């Protein structure tokens, strides 16, 4: 089975090709949907087989590389088209194909009747292929194909409703910001490649080879530079400060896209990449610190914005950014397993929530359409009380919300708590630990608050929509609700595979599974870890309880403000208008970027074009021509037609020549 790993990306590719080339002719949505879903489902089956086979091997042997062909070979540089299967990528392919399958299925229902149905499925398949390439890539360059490939698909899917200007803008923004990240990725790659080559004469970009040679890497120095560059790549892809602004805008895409790409898979690529190269990152303490700080900062920053958004998907988007921040926090504190764990659970519950919101929007849209109203179907202020109309959606959404809020025993609790605990107890960042933990904890509180705000605004209270259309709000069809239920279930129980040791009820399967991957990293980490300070179990229990409390506090605030005392938010807004405006407008970061980068680039471009190119360069060229023409006119003037002048010229010529030779 392992040998057939190449099938995994192949199926979606086939699906893409069929739908892409013939989708328009097929027309039948069921067939198109079946092809798309079937393709990814086949991948899922293969992935399961691979996972099984991997489980059957002893932990040290769980690394397998499949070389397809040499892709680029130039000088010392060699990149094979090769796939790497190890526990980490196994987790990822499971997540990608699993969640992917569900979302494909969901899309059949959700995208029903859309004009570009086939196109959508083609893109979705293409995305899955790219994502699978990303996670399976055995070297940085294959990963980079996937890395940019998912960016492309994200571009295509965000711009799916290309007739909307905002969609086009968002798509472009997403791609460009990703590109900024890719720039970092490339430089990081170059640096690493160069360092190994010139210092150790190891010319490679293959992960396993780098891993084998990683003991040669120094701590800090060039590794810091390389890893920071990689991290820039990660911030681009995973929407971290400062490159996060594209993700909320990306909600212009259809909701399944948001679920798959902008929640479950693509945006976690940065986290995965750090995990993949943990043995390099750990050698750069400064980078680790930066990762942790950026992660924590993003977590709280995005959370604050999330509190003031009214668009249901936007809230989820900021929540995603925030949760990704958690993951990076985990990576930054050396808790790679926890980071990946959160990645997985987040995939479950966030996908579930996005799909749930999609279900809501679908219903709202339907209802509004019926009533010929032009209200925004995504605006939560129009919703309310939907739990009665859409029970399945509500339940799945609710459990997912509990999971993200970190309520025991939902999956999010385990992963998030692990992260917070690691942030507190990690041996790397000295005094920063408390700050990291504190930030994470507050962010968790905010998370609980705004998520429940969302739930309360959407599903509780009275329906604020026009009563005429209220009756048209229906639960979505099965094809939509089945994925919701599966994901809801996973969001509920998914955490048990990674139960903390202190609880001891179950072994931490997840950690054991990933241990071989991060073994080396933790080994390197030890060499510069501060005091092996051991924290008591009691403290761990205490913090665990504390984080639940924090979550509950957040929920309670939300409950108070949006269920009990619904007038309070307005009051709050009127008390602190500036703050609200700032938060509502996302702290004006987009405007800041426009001011700092976009507009200067444009005006500089204009200046260069109309100033430099046209005036100076062409000016010199045309000026030379003009000058010569001027000379021409002047010389022509000598040619007066008068014989005297000609004779004079000759005589003067003679005189000059003679004079030069006679008097020199």
């Amino acid at each position, binding site marked *: 089975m392992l040998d057939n790993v190449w099938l995994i990306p192949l199926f979606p590719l086939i699906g893409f090709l069929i739908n892409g080339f013939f989708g328009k002719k097929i027309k039948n949505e069921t067939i198109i949907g079946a092809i798309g879903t079937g393709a990814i489902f086949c991948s899922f089956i293969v992935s399961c087989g691979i996972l099984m086979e991997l489980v059957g091997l002893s932990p040290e042997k769980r690394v397998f590389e499949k070389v397809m062909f040499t892709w680029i070979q130039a000088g010392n540089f060699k990149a094979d088209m090769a796939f790497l299967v190890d526990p980490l990528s196994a987790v990822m392919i499971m997540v990608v194909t699993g969640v992917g399958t569900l979302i494909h299925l969901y899309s059949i229902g959700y995208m029903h009747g859309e004009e570009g149905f086939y196109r959508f499925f083609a893109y979705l398949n293409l995305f899955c292929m790219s994502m699978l390439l990303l996670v399976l890539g055995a070297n940085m360059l294959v990963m980079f194909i996937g890395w940019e490939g998912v960016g492309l698909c994200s571009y295509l899917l965000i711009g799916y409703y290309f007739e909307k200007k905002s969609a086009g803008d968002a798509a472009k923004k997403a791609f460009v910001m990703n590109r900024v990240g890719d720039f970092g990725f490339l430089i990081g790659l170059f640096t690493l490649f160069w360092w190994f080559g010139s210092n150790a004469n190891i010319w490679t970009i293959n992960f396993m080879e780098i891993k084998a040679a990683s003991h040669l890497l120094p701590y800090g120095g060039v590794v810091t530079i390389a890893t920071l560059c990689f991290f820039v790549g990660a911030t681009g892809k995973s929407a971290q400060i400062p490159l996060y602004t594209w993700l909320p805008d990306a909600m212009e895409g259809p909701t399944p896209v948001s679920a798959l790409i902008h929640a479950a898979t693509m945006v976690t690529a940065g986290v995965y990449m750090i995990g993949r190269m943990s043995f390099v990152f750990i050698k750069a303490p400064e980078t680790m610190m930066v990762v942790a700080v950026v992660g924590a900062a993003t977590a709280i920053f995005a959370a604050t914005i999330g509190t003031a958004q009214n668009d249901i998907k936007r809230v989820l988007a900021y929540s995603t950014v925030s949760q990704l921040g958690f993951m990076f926090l985990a990576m930054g504190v050396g808790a790679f397993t926890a980071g990946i764990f959160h990645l997985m659970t987040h995939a479950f519950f966030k996908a579930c929530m996005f799909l749930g919101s999609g279900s809501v929007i679908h219903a709202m849209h339907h209802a509004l359409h019926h009533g010929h109203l032009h209200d925004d179907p995504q605006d939560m202020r129009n919703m309310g009380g939907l739990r009665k109309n859409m029970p399945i959606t509500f339940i799945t959404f609710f459990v997912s919300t509990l999971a993200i809020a970190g309520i025991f025993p939902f999956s999010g609790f385990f992963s998030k708590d692990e992260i917070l605990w690691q942030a507190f107890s990690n041996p790397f960042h000295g005094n920063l630990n408390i700050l990291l933990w504190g930030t994470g904890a507050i962010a968790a509180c905010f998370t609980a608050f705004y998520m429940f705000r969302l739930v309360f605004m959407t599903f509780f209270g009275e329906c604020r929509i026009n009563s005429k259309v209220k009756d048209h709000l229906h639960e979505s069809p099965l094809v939509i609700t089945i994925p919701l239920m599966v994901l809801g279930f996973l969001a509920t129980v998914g955490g048990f595979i990674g139960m903390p040791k202190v609880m001891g009820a179950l072994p931490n399967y997840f950690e054991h599974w990933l241990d071989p991957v991060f073994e080396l990293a933790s080994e390197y980490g030890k060499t510069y870890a501060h005091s092996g300070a051991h924290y008591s179990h009691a403290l761990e229990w205490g913090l665990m309880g504390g984080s639940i409390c924090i979550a509950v506090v957040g929920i309670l605030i939300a409950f108070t403000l949006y269920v009990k005392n619904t007038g309070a938010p307005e009051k709050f807004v009127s008390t602190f208008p500036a703050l609200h405006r700032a938060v509502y407008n996302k702290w004006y970061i987009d405007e800041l970027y426009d001011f700092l980068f976009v507009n200067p680039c444009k005006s500089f471009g204009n200046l260069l074009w109309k100033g430099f190119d046209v005036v100076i360069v062409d000016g010199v060229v045309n000026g030379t*021509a003009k000058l*010569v*023409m001027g*000379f*021409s*006119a002047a*010389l*022509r003037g*000598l*040619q007066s*037609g008068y*014989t005297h*002048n*000609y*004779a004079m*010229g*000759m005589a*003067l*010529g*003679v005189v000059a*020549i*003679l004079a030069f*030779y*006679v008097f020199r």
Partner: protein
Amino acid sequence: MENIVIPAINMAVIAPEVILSLFAMALLLINVFVKGESKAYLGYLSIAGIVVTLFSVVSGWGCPAEGFSGTIVQDNFAIFFKVIFLIAAAMSILITDRYLEREGCNQGEIYPLILFATVGMMLMAAGTDLMTIFLGLEVLSVSLYILAGFNRGSLKSNEAGLKYFLLGAFSTGFLLYGMALTYGATGTTKVAKIAAFIAQAGINSSNLMLLAGMLLMATGFAFKVAAAPFHMWTPDVYEGAPTPMTAFMSVGPKAAGFAAFLRVFLVALPALKAEWTWLVWVLAVLTMTIGNITALYQQNIKRMLAYSSIAHAGYVLVGFVAGNAVGTAGILFYMLSYAFMNIGAFAIIILVGKKGEENNNVSDYAGFGYKHPILGIAMCIFLFSLAGIPPAAGFIGKFYLFSGAIQAGYIWLAVIGVLNSAASVYYYLRVMVFMYFKESTEEFGWVKLSPAFILCLLIAVAGVLIPGVLPGVFLDLAQKALFM
């Protein structure tokens, strides 16, 4: 009283000149005695004469001989130039007849005059005595004055002839003065003896009289080849003269001027090379630059080609500066190819013209390339060759000239030369811009091809393309024609 002992007369040496002169005289007689409106037969007869002369010239190739007490010589150098003159004369004659008919000055004397001019040029090329050269030059000049003013009904032609005459006579004064001083400094007028005397007496550049003689001769020759600042007559005369004669003048006399210039300076005055090299350097730069730059502004195509011919003289002077085998061979080759391309271009100009108004403005060529595609292509070939763009002969010629300069170490001169070439492209392209890139505004009057024209154009095209693509044999001949 002693008897006059007539020295050995080697008639073979002057056979071409004699033949051509005889033909010219015969034509004069025929012209008087045979009446007829069309004088084309005279043209054909003179072509016949030229062909015969050509054979006579070519037969001397490779057998150097001296005649008339060293006043004239038959060497490959002279022969090569004579071939150029004959080609130029023949091609000009081919395009003369129709033109004269159109302009209404169809007088048969023009053909003998062209032949006389050709004789003069041949004497310039072959003369090894300053007197022979001077007289050859005068035969040429006197004929040319008349040819320039030949269309006596046309004020422009009168003016051209008169201007040419006055300025030519003026420059003759300087040339003569130079010859006189040279004679004074060396005691002889024979180029070989001058060189021998300078070498034997150890005269060097500190001898001001010789130096001044050299400089004044240089100005005289510079006038003939239209080098700046002695070029100013050229545009006016070329513009005013009957077009076929312009074609002839721009090629033959220029080549003859160079032939004499080269012979006097390279054979008689090599000792002063260090001196005249810099003079010629400056002349070359001035000539190229002034010619090209002024040409940029021209609207009248004849005038433009006149300036261009000044520029071409400049390029040739570059080869002169080099003074080495490559450069000199370059001059020979270049003059040969220049004959084809320039006369070819003028032939087209004649075709485009009408009586009275000759349609000589560049803008009159709008759409010409479409109305007459074949002529258009031919014109393009000539212009590209003039601009020095491969694979035309003009390119090879320039290549050789500049190579000579580079070989001799005059890199800057070569650089100035190529930059000039680049500038020149502009005005040649301008004609093509009108020919192809603009729509025609009016009809072209008089494109009536006669067999003579076709022949001339064919020769010109072949003469541009064959040496352009396969220059080897021509260059080889040019190399063999050097007297060093």
